[in-house]
């Protein structure tokens, strides 16, 4: 992949990957760190011809986020916890809402959650379809259904 091509992918996808990681981790700093990590992997080990850059980036970011949340090292976890706590009150306020939204997302099944995160991070139907392994034409239906469930769960929880 050429230099120009690479910077284009970066410009097109940085914000999407960042938002995705923010949804999954609720931490703007962590999201930024891991987003850099994702692009580093992309640069060192770009996806082959089959498969789009977007779907690849989403998958790698998702795995990194899960690994992070699963992190076995106790000390690391603790430091993350305190890192999370060490927030400006303004940001923390924002986090409160995010935490609730995250609880709602956690109640949904994996597929609906991924659809919501992908769509609202800015990924295209084609990319969502590739990640889910379904036809692009069925994404509209899945998005509409996920939206309905999201609102339902959201109201239920309150």
């Amino acid at each position: 992949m050429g230099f120009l091509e690479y910077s284009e992918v970066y410009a097109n996808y940085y914000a999407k990957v960042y938002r995705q990681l923010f949804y999954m981790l609720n931490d703007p700093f962590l999201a930024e760190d891991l987003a850099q990590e994702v692009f580093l992997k992309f640069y060192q080990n770009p996806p082959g011809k089959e498969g789009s850059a977007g779907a690849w980036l989403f998958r790698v970011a998702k795995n990194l986020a899960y690994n992070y949340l699963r992190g076995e090292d106790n000390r690391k976890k603790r430091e993350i916890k305190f890192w999370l706590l060490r927030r400006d009150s303004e940001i923390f306020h924002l986090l409160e809402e995010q935490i609730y939204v995250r609880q709602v997302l956690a109640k949904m099944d994996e597929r609906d959650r991924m659809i919501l995160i992908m769509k609202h991070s800015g990924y295209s139907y084609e990319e969502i379809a590739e990640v889910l392994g379904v036809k692009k034409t069925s994404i509209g239906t899945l998005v509409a259904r996920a939206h309905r469930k999201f609102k339902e769960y959201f109201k239920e929880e309150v």
Partner: protein
Amino acid sequence: MCYDDGILQAYLDGELDEREKEMVKTHLDTCAKCKKVLDELKDLDEFAKEKLAIDFNPSMEFLKKRYKYFMIRKGAENMIKKYGKAVAAFAGVLLVFSAVLVSPVRDAVADFLGVFRMSRIEAVKITPEDIEKIRQRLNESGVKEIDLEQFGKFKSIGGGFEEVKPEEVESAAEKVDFDFRPFGELDGYKLAFVGVEKPQKLEITPDVEGINRLIMAFGGEKTLPEEMDGKTFVIRTTGTVRQTFVSEEERANFKSFVITQVGAPEIQVPEGVDLNAVREAMLELPLLPENIRQQLSGIENWQATIPIPVDAEHSEVEDITVKGKPALLVKNRWGDNAFNYAILWTDNQTIFALDGSLPLEEMLKIAESLR
């Protein structure tokens, strides 16, 4: 024929091709039922958008800057990968040697060993461009692989991390070799977490010939003095304790800060080693960007000063005073107008660092109140 949810959702999201889009549009003009479904989908979409919204729509300018920073970081990582730990070790040794650098007065006290306690700190600003320059020069030098073995023997004893319960904070003092001062409660903040890095001894026995070969490969003209060969330098850290405090009131007004106490490390330099020569050899390495060289050579009282690297792109450093003593105020920028503050100062043989998310005035108040 009416459309299903899926087509209407795709229509909303601009995911239909031109022909389909026109067809749906025409149909919607005449079909109240589909219009109603569309409105419902739109409401749901907006609900989710509002709840999930993250205000992150970076400008092209922002992305360009990020990208540049990223490429430099990538370069630095490649550099570390390619040259192994050697570069990191080399940089560390360089900093330590530069720091140990000796004033002529030291010679007068050169009895058996020169022992220096580094209990002063000074900021050294490093920009991404500096790192990029080092990387370029490494590439130009044609040195492909660096094996730490070529530079001498390294041996480390002790160290390790341990956690102490907040209510037993006093016991941390027994785990470190410096005069640790425990703080219990501070002005509405309670102690939530105590972490201890235990003392460590690092013995470095340089292989002067190996190091000099590397210096010359990098285009350096001044080499290390022969008499250093086979002599052992000992760096002894005396431990670190981090105390994290959180505000009593949970959630809404949540605030926290960390007080770190680092015991001044001690360095033993073997007899008969001319540290001035070491300093010059290190400082004159062409590898070192001019910006860093100037800052390092500008530090007075070298033998007792630890240079603190500061990321110049995201931080500003100011000289202030805390309890009448010189201190460093580091402002880390992480948003357009948002800062995190860190205050560093030394007291006797302990280096203090206070950092957190409090307003600056409150941070200064806490720093002044520590006893």
